[in-house]
């Protein structure tokens, strides 16, 4: 655990706001919402890599498509197989 994480833990502050941790919401295996992402690093039909403050988030699957994205959130649809940090 880094010093910053320890500090945030000690103060009981929301980690997503203090550390910029990504919030990942998964609906079954067909829809995924990621908040607090920095940029899209890689986009193919079978994999999407997103850069977050805590590192790379890789989503693999089939027929992946970006339903929408904006400053705060990206929504991905398709057949999701795995989510890796």
């Amino acid at each position: 655990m880094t010093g910053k994480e320890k500090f945030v833990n000690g103060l009981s502050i929301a980690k997503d706001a203090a550390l910029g941790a990504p919030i990942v919401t998964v609906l079954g295996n067909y829809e995924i919402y990621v908040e607090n992402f920095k940029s899209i690093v890689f986009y193919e039909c079978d994999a999407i890599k997103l850069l977050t403050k805590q590192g790379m988030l890789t989503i693999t699957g089939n027929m992946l498509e970006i339903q929408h994205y904006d400053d705060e959130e990206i929504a991905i649809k398709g057949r999701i197989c795995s989510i890796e940090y």
Partner: protein
Amino acid sequence: MKSDGKASYVQVKVVSDRPERFLNMCRHRQIGFWNINRTEEGFNACITRQDFLLIKDICYKTGTKVRITKKVGVPFLLFKYRKHYSFLVGILLSCAILYLCGLFVWNISFTGNSKYTNSMLLKFLRSMNVYSGMQISKIDCDNIESSIRNEYPDITWVSAEISGTRLIVHIKENDVAMVTGNSEDNPRDIVAAENGIVHSIITRKGTPMVKVGDTVEKGQILVSGVVKILNDAGEHVGNIYTEADADIIVSAQYEYYDKLNVQHESKIYTGSTKTKKIFGFVDRDIELNFSFGTFENYDVITKYEPCMLTESFYLPFYFGSRVYYEYNEVVENYTEDEAKAELSKHFNYYIEDLVENKVQIIEYNVKMYTDSDSFVMSGSVDVLTPVIEYRPVTDIEIKVNEENKNG
């Protein structure tokens, strides 16, 4: 970004070696794509018309080519048909027709009426030259309100409003007639509505002429609108004329008689029906299926579906359907059980009607017997009924009281 609520957008085919970089730059400038599908060359996506105009610079920087595959939305449609003048004329004509339609009343509706049916009230409004199809500017709501109140004394409150192309008349009815105006200008007596015995009397205004237990006849004055003024010596020095006001309950006996002929005609529905579509304009309609004949004997149920743009913007035409139900007339004889059931049903309606009119049923004694060619139910119903009949104080009463005062 989502397509929900976007007035117009374009579907684009993006050709790029680094589509991720293109998307990130767009995101940085708050340009959003949605429904992004990856292809071998790049991706297909949707983008708003306004955002599409902003991506030229990004395309140049990232070496991306964007091609429009489909345009969706009214602005594109208008641009496409900009040379079709008939299209423009049609739009202008439609707007003009809508504007003209909005100048007239196409629907008159009533709320709160139960005693007076819509058709009765519509007929009355028609006699005042207020009808479906008249100009809104010529409608005087205040006049409608006062006219309805004057015509129907037991309608105690009326409010007429114009909402879009509708004239809505809100009504409140009262069982007891409300007399407005100065009580001294309209002196009135309370008179017995039927023969009976006074069960209770509470007088608020006027001079009671009867007491509990008195037998009264129809038309007899129960509470007079003339109040005598006596001086300290008990001499009659003057009169006050007022609206008599009292709660009087009279115990009365109603005779009940109902007759049912043994032989009667009844409708036997054959089950065949014919439905005809109708089209109406203002208050006239025509049937659209001319090829159908009609039955010899039939019942008709007509349903109207008014055309409206919004709940308050009615248009002058309507559609509907008319269903004809065929039946055969058959002469049948009632059996005793059937007749008993039918007569009991009539009697129950009669009792319900009395109760609705605030008449309290004390006791009833009815019997059914068979006449030569009919079944008869007769008897009597003992009731406690409130007296709600008023009569203006007559000139004779005034004259007599004046003479008494002078004499």
